[in-house]
């Protein structure tokens, strides 16, 4: 595991507050989403990231605007941390045209060209080849960007993981593979999906450097990411980061969680990444008395505003049902 205190990023008070704020934004946003799901404002599948926020937040802070980001169906946190506006994300969850994907994608398909956020992919493992290609485009166009690709440990069993790591190392492409190992793929625990459960070990099969990170420690994640990003930008080729984490909520809103013990969930909740950062900031004096309340208040306002924004958003007209299937008019 990376020692967060060894390779500390800029641990200014502002920076820590920023990390805290981002994690709180994701947490409160998703709590609101769960509520709105009960109210049937949000439909389809809804996969919450609660418990795993440190990864997206730590990771995005290490990226530049020119980098490309690819995530999965559990990507609200990534989109928020990357800078997609909460309004546009919430409107997307509502399916309104003000949404970041014009309402067509919903929770699993957030997209945003301005921040180079390439989704939002609902096929497990489906994003990895795209990331290889985005990295290839950076390299061939001699740009300094990289492609950061987030995926669960369940995706590691798919052939796409194997093919993508090999291809990206063969061509020394600027791709950062971030495995969010939350121990479960739906109801399947890591040991039942991987005969070698140490994900990072698999990088050896491709000569790809790899590291394990405590995914509940946002500072550790950011530090590991900065190191990896620097190496990739210097031309080292792809890197795999395995972030060990846990999802506090069900897989999706349909999951009765028969496959794990409540006690295990409670145990992991003790390592809540927000609490952890808070207590560390308190200890080190970086947190002032009013800070948390101020953040919570601002976030609550932002969340409320995003709901209002979405409520007053518009539905796409039926006439444009098939718009954008192609560029230009193409009859079926």
């Amino acid at each position: 595991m990376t020692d967060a205190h060894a390779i500390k990023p800029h641990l200014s008070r502002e920076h820590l507050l920023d990390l805290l704020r981002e994690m709180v934004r994701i947490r409160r946003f998703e709590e609101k989403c769960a509520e709105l799901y009960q109210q049937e404002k949000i439909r389809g599948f809804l996969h919450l990231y609660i418990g795993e926020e440190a990864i997206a937040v730590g990771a995005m802070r290490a990226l530049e605007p020119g980098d490309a980001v690819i995530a999965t169906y559990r990507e609200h946190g990534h989109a928020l941390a990357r800078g997609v506006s909460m309004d546009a994300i919430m409107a997307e969850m509502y399916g309104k045209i003000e949404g970041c994907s014009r309402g067509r994608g919903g929770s699993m398909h957030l997209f945003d060209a301005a921040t180079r956020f390439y989704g939002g992919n609902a096929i497990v493992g489906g994003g990895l080849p795209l990331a290889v290609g985005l990295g290839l485009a950076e390299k061939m166009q001699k740009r300094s960007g990289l492609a950061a690709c987030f995926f669960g440990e369940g995706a590691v069993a798919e052939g796409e993981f194997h093919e993508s790591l090999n291809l990206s190392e063969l061509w020394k492409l600027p791709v950062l593979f971030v495995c969010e190992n939350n121990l479960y793929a739906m109801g399947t625990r890591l040991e039942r999906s991987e005969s070698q459960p140490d994900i990072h070990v698999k990088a050896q099969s491709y000569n790809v450097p790899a590291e394990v990170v405590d995914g509940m420690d946002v500072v550790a994640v950011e530090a590991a990411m900065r190191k990896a990003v620097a190496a990739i930008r210097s031309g080292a080729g792809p890197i795999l980061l395995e972030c060990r984490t846990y999802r506090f909520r069900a897989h999706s809103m349909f999951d009765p969680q028969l496959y794990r013990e409540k006690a295990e969930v409670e145990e992991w909740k003790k390592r809540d990444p927000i609490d952890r950062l808070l207590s560390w900031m308190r200890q080190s004096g970086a947190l002032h008395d009013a800070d948390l309340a101020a953040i919570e208040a601002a976030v609550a306002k932002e969340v409320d505003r995003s709901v209002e924004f979405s409520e007053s958003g518009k539905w796409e007209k039926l006439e444009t049902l098939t718009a954008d299937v192609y560029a230009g008019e193409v009859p079926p």
Partner: protein
Amino acid sequence: MTAPPLPKQGPEISYREAVREAIREAILGDPRVFLMGEDVGRYGGCYAVTKGLLEEFGPERIRDTPLSESAFVGAGIGAALGGMRPIVEVMTVNFSLLALDQIVNNAATLRHMSGGQFEVPLVIRMATGAGRQLAAQHSHSLEGWYAHIPGIKVLAPATLEDARFMLGAALADPNPVLIFEHVMLYNMTGTLDGAGPVDIRSAKVRRVGRDVTLIAYGGTLFKTLIAAETLAKEGIEAEVIDLRVLRPLDTGTILASVRRTRRAVIVDEGWRSGSLSAEVSARITEGAFWDLDAPVERVCSAEVPIPYPRHLEEAALPQPPGIVAAAKATLGR
């Protein structure tokens, strides 16, 4: 959604439970039968179809697989070659693309290509279809593609009876059989009084009528029956055919009906161009051209990756009003 054609007696059972009972019966009845797929065990199945089976049968017979569609579908083919009778669950048809090579190039070819020496007595079940606002990557209806492949059989149970009994018939068949369960049917309830073993050869007339033949399967059957009721109120008696078996197609039942009604509408949740509806239309033209009083109509999905919002999803899929309109068009009304 409820199942109109089944008599309302005896205990209520859901489509989901009917499939589960079919799996239980198969496992109890044949030591070679086992189930494997993603989250069929501890999770209880993505659509809760297999809930409780792991507890009842243990991890040898109910096998959770990693996310490796190509390997576990291929392993099902291999296990069938080796003497087992696997039921492989691919969570949904959307993910089956990852296993398509194994199905097309191995399952479908091995008997013929080996000169009849080997057989692949395998059943692959998968959920199909849209309607749950799952958007572009989780709403495919690709069973028509599978129906293109010589060497496999393709079933689409649209009733509780078929959900309950097609699996047994599929396992008894020495050919590889694919079963497509439409996601909107799992909650459908009714009773199974008098229901029993079914064939996997024939299409069935689910409603008798004389004015126009409506042909549907899977998730569109009940929409089509609803449309038929609407038509009846306007004095149009539609005959409704449930294809049930998408490969081989029971052309005989289709043609017999169309020759009587002289009009046909095919309802298919696949995207219109190149969907199974096209094959049915072509066969009607080939077999009953001189009996037709109007061009064959099709009601299919709009040619768009299925969008998330409810109103757009509904607009993209076949719906009763569209079926009614198409039926009327064949009657010049």
